[in-house]
């Protein structure tokens, strides 16, 4: 019995969500008096790998085959399954990123393991059960799901569990697996990442705009606000439907669910479908010229007024705060 954590990297770097997942996995390993092994796949240097120990991994398996350079869920699932076999892992943790979700499911099917995707708390292991709290109904509720299979898989929602330093010493082992050609039918031709863009699902602060902004030409003020906060940009569905912003930024029941510390909803009315995507946000701020807008029912702070005037003022005030 042991715990295995898969730590996803982006161009050789682990993101905060990976460290959060390591610390979360550490807590589970401690609870079960067992070892935590991290598996990293792809090209990651020794310094970066050492950080996994810093956040709580006892041991690191490093798989750096040339053909595993880019993420292919089928091939990565096979490597992680091998690592689970090697370490005798019965609990496998991943971060609930875009890639992590599909990977967890593929791995679950491979290992006949129950998968709790989008966990928001540590598992409850009382009475010899293993119950995980996760979001369901697109964020409108939580489900308490008992994983009854021998192997249990959890993907952790971002910004739920803090990455805590544990200061373990590093122990890296190279881990190679025999590749099954059937796993490599998917060819990654090209990867395009916008430079310096904060990714929405794991952003700590999200600046989100709705139809109240009246047009894409007014997004500059949101970009400035987001820049001042190091925030990710998001929007409501009609905004992406109208092509003002890309679909990948649309938050809500039929879009992305976010879990930031701060969500700033600007010119967003707060329709039930939109609110579903932000139920895990810790603090919600609304800026809307209609005091009756439903967004104020869920907001912690609000300003009733014209977004086009208030947002630049807020950016200026924040710049002062951060400098001060």
């Amino acid at each position: 019995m042991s715990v295995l954590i898969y730590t996803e990297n982006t161009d050789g770097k682990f993101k905060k969500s990976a460290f959060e997942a390591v610390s979360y996995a550490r807590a589970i390993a401690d609870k079960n008096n067992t070892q935590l092994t991290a598996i990293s796949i792809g090209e990651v240097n020794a310094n970066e790998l050492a950080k996994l120990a810093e956040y709580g991994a006892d041991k690191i398996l490093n798989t750096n085959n040339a053909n595993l350079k880019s993420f292919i869920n089928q091939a990565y699932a096979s490597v992680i399954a091998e690592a689970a076999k090697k370490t005798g892992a019965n609990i496998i943790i991943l971060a609930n990123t875009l890639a992590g979700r599909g990977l967890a499911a593929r791995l679950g099917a491979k290992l006949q393991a129950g998968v709790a995707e989008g966990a928001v708390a540590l598992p409850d292991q009382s009475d010899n059960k293993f119950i995980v709290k996760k979001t369901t109904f697109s964020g409108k509720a939580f489900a308490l799901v008992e994983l009854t299979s021998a192997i249990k898989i959890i993907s952790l929602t971002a910004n739920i569990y803090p990455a805590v330093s544990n200061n373990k010493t590093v122990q890296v082992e190279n881990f190679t697996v025999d590749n099954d050609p059937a796993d490599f039918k998917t060819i990654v031709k090209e990867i395009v990442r916008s430079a310096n863009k904060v990714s929405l699902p794991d952003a700590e602060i999200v600046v989100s705009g709705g139809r109240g902004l009246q047009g894409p030409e007014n997004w500059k003020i949101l970009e400035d606000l987001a820049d001042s906060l190091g925030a990710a940009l998001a929007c409501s569905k009609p905004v992406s439907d109208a092509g003002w912003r890309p679909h990948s930024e649309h938050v809500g029941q039929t879009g992305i669910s976010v879990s930031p510390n701060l969500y700033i909803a600007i010119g967003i009315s707060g329709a039930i479908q939109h609110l579903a995507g932000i139920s895990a946000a810790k603090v919600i701020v609304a800026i809307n010229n209609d005091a009756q807008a439903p967004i104020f029912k869920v907001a912690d702070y609000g300003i009733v007024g014209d977004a086009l005037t208030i947002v630049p003022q807020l950016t200026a005030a924040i710049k002062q705060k951060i400098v001060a």
Partner: protein
Amino acid sequence: MKILVCISNVPDTTTKIAFTDNNTQFNTNGVQFIVNPYDEIALARAIELAEDGKGTITLINVGGANTEPTIRKALAAGGDDAVRINAEPHDAWFVANQIASYVKSNPYDLILTGRESIDYNGSKVAAMLGELLNVPSVSTAKKIEINGHEAIIEQEIEGGKELLTVPLPLVIGVAEGVAEPKIPNMRGIMAARTKPLTIIEPIEVNVVEEIRGYELPEPRGQVKLVNDAAQLAQLLHTEAKVI
């Protein structure tokens, strides 16, 4: 090209979620059920890809008889026939096993699912199906083109996108952008009534998870309204401590 589109029967997006039986059952009282929005997009793309006799489309749903209106609604938008596997969809593992079992005896070139279902949404079925059928799976497609025996897919990734080529057969989870949902016309609605709907019985599947209960998010407190931006920034800094 034979295309299979997985259709999930989900509560309308305006549904206020509530539970009964000591928070262990979803309260379906007064709830309208619809075709999962992403499945509508998947179906729309299937219709485009099958246009001009280039393919046939089968819809598949794992569900009880109560899901038939939803299946007919989907058939009204398009598709040649439908299959219903007669069982309550216990979880993604159960659903994926049922569909995989059907596909093993009825092969398809392209299997489309939604990126996620908006009820028990786990974004799991596509990848599980891929694994059970031992074919590639793509979880979050934003664009799908088919060129002979190859799919060319744009997939959403953290902070960007990637371009993939994958040989058929494969499973694709469809996200927004792939197509515009088709609104059924009168002819479609009439035709849907007589399209074949085959009911097949489920296979046995081992249970890997059980839902023990539900919780609703904590109600949020009263909003604190402020008059100007400087005051708001101050509160976020000193009181909420989020900036």
